[in-house]
């Protein structure tokens, strides 16, 4: 009888674990590419669509390797959608040779400014592309020159990574529904937490800035098991639109059950190195070599 009960509990725990794991799926950003340089459009002709598809795939892969708090897919049609344009830089130039640039913008989130950086200077405009694979390789090299800080601050920080978190009051902190390795996110990363707080006039939106401080393992308390090991973040003084210091005081007295989270954004991202969690059998392959 006891064993059967244990089994049921194990099953429930695993179900809970599975459900919790399901809740931790990072949002997917659809990535597309737009080749908008007329000279190269003409050069690729019918191959243009194939180039754009492959370019989107490489960019999605690169983004996934560097910004683990989101998932990126080239073949997705979901929102938010990230569009990368390869285009002639704007200006009044009447010259034949043009500077080319990469412009990255996020559609579907009302993101403010796009991120722009140089692809080729003007005097290299006429250099051959090396065909489809050559231009793809050049694109890969240029990706390494992107301003990663601005890419997060201007673009990727517009995508919410979760709509739940737990407010913990001793000390005041939020436990987000991810482990460090889920997001490949190191401590010191900064989040924006948008929450609805109770007030005399009904729930009011409050925006907080919080810094990842550690893995949640409170002393002398027994929180739900699925909280343990998640990232906990502590509020820090910030500038608008986040709450000022005075707004932080309310967090200590509010009933956590009455707080709901609307969105969590990553404002500053420190990548965890090495980014490693337990590797499931599905992710290992012993055929290519066994060192």
């Amino acid at each position, binding site marked *: 009888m006891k064993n059967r009960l*244990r*089994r*049921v509990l*194990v*099953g429930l*725990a*695993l179900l809970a*674990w599975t459900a919790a794991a399901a809740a931790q799926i990072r949002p997917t950003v659809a990535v597309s590419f737009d080749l908008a340089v007329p000279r190269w459009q003409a050069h690729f002709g019918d191959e243009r669509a194939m180039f754009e598809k492959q370019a989107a795939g490489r960019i999605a892969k690169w983004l996934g390797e560097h910004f683990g708090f989101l998932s990126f897919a080239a073949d997705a049609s979901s929102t938010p959608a990230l569009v990368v344009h390869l285009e002639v*830089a*704007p*200006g*009044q130039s*009447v010259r034949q040779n043009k*500077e080319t*640039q990469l412009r990255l913008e996020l559609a579907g989130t009302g993101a403010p400014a796009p991120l*722009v*950086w*140089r692809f*080729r*200077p*003007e*005097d*290299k405009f*006429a*250099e*051959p*592309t*090396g*065909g489809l*694979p*050559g231009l793809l*390789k*050049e694109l890969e*090299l*240029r990706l*390494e*020159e992107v*301003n*990663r*800080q*601005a890419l997060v*601050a*201007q673009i990727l920080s517009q995508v919410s990574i979760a709509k739940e978190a737990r407010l913990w009051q001793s000390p005041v902190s939020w436990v987000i529904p991810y482990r460090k390795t889920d997001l490949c996110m*190191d401590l*010191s990363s900064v989040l924006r937490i948008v929450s609805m707080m109770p007030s005399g006039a009904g729930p009011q939106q409050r925006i907080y800035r919080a810094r990842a401080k550690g893995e949640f393992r409170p002393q002398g308390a027994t929180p739900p098991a699925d909280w343990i090991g998640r990232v906990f973040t502590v509020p820090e003084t910030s500038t608008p639109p986040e709450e000022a210091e005075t707004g932080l005081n309310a967090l200590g007295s509010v009933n956590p059950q009455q707080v709901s989270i609307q969105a969590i954004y990553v404002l500053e991202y*420190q*990548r965890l*190195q*090495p980014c*490693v969690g*337990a*590797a499931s*059998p*599905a992710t*290992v392959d*012993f055929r*290519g*070599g*066994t*060192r």
Partner: protein
Amino acid sequence: MNRLRPLALLAFGLLAGAAHAQEHYDRARRAVEEAQALQASGRWSDAQVRLAEAAQGCGSDLAERPCRLLVRYSSGYLSEFEAAAAEERRKAMLEAAVTHYRAVLAEAPQHEATLRNLASVYRRLDRAQDAEALLQQAVAGDGTGTGGAAMLLGQFYREEGRTEDAMAAFERAAAANPASAAAPQAIVALHADAPPEKLAALLPRLVDWEGSFPAVAEEGYRRVLRGMTGTPPAEQALLAWVSVVARQGWIAPANFAGLPRGWTPVEELLRYAGQPEAEPSAPWWMQLALRRSVLAELALAEGQAAEVRRAPSRSLRRLQVGMRIAPEYEEYLFRAELKRAWPSRLELARAQLALLAREPALDPGARLQQAVINELFVGKAGAYRSENLEAMQRFHVTLGRWYAERRQWAGNGSTTARFQLERAIGTAAERAARGEPYQPMQEEKLLLAGGYEQLGERAKASDMYLRAAEAFLDTDQLEEARDALGVAQRLTSGPPGPGTEMLQRVIATRGKVVASAQQADPADSGQAWLRTNTSQPFLIRQRFKVFADLAERAQAAGMEDTAASYAGIAFETALRSKSLVGTADLVRLDHARTLALARADTAQRRSAMVSSRALRDPGGEVLPVYVPNEGRATYVSLSADAILAGRFDAALRREPALSGKPVRYSVDNGQIRLRVADADPSVTPVIERLRGVPGVRSLALLP
């Protein structure tokens, strides 16, 4: 013969087994998935049975090893999770996981996922010492060149709060794999709350990383700024930080957020960055020449920022402000602190000239352009010189094109297109001689050839057209190469010289490869240049291109063996080359390497890395590659084992006794293990010869 018979039988058995190995592996993977599903539904015993069945299905010979390891690994992994689900058996399950993972490591001591999982299990068993010993052992035996084991050890120490040990481990990872940003990034992250003396010690490392990993250096400088605000090291970090963000063009407002406020240098900087078109009120920055030079770097970046591209007049104002900030040319020459500084004034002048030439409406009558030119040349002669060859080349190219557009070819001194273009081409050659990528400079050569022609210097013009034709071939522009060669011939009287004839042959050969996928014809004397062991860098580069293209076409036609042979020649040729040209060559190299080394097991080993720095492994090679950017160099670092595999494979192909025999081999730190199917006595002398391939430390023939 009798002695070899059992060997041949074994080899036959091995091949037969290998045919089933893949099937067994796939079956094992499905079994593992089923076991996971059983465990998730609470049927751990059934999951264990399923794993045991899968293990039996794997068989015991060598070819089945991946299958066995997969099942063993999965058993460890599922035991770990069972430990979390069943508290009373937690310890027993974790111990079981240890046993399984240990078994995997006995056969694959460097398997990173297993090392990681086992270390984690040890920690859950409160056996941190065992975890440490395991990872230390893995680091000691790590020959993969990835630094992966050292990274795991560093992370372990970091989580244990042992910062010094973590630092040492990450340093070791950085040394093992200098082309990767992972270890430098981990080292910077380790300094999150470091005391001032540690942060100060980090500074020289950041300077070293600026070239290869600017994002890591930028983050590091920020940490020093935050942790040591107001101190001399913070001042040094601020100058370095501004220089990095300016040169990378990372001047978005997001980058300036988070700097320590309330400190005069930062406050002045923010004020200037907020209004880069206004004269800066920045006494701290204007006090010393080096600070002015760094702030002028920022002015250059502001002048070229995306937001002012639509408004060139704003761009001009920003550059002009920069000119007023920057030290004078003489200061760059004579002030010790500016000897190695970025030549901001020169770069600002160049950018201004380029902008004004591009946007004539900004400068009716070209008075501003003339003012820049006057400042450069009318003052002290040669005052514009800089030790920075990259900047000097940019400068000469801009001026050369500027004068060429105005048809100013004749005359003495530096104020002619001829002088500037000759200097631009010469500086590019000087950089190549220093180990940077060879730059074709085809446009500049064509322009200069036209200039010589205009000046009536036919011999020089002809020679420069030939050089332009070579450059066009280097950049895969066959039509343009033909045209340039045609003009060169027109300018010379008499029969074509040897250089012209060789170029004709190269163009013809490459044309055939492109047009008809025709293979190299041993009987064709026009293709004899492909077979000669030339030492001319141009011909080596062309030979590489031809054989890489032939390999690609042979593969597309389904001729795998021919493709591998051509790829082998291409890869060998690339190793002899001093430089590759264009991203097309990077693609060729990737493809040729993959095809040429298809029989080699170097799967877990880093074999090639593309980087902005020439990073040479012991015994490895660095190939500079020209790519059409603003002048930053690109390099491919090839590991010693990849190079050895290339040479070894070429030697294998030259052995008739091995022709048509399935061969596989592994390369590990110069040690080669070779497996030959259908081996017969003729193989014995072959093995002896193969031991003589340069770089082979040992060679074992496996049954």
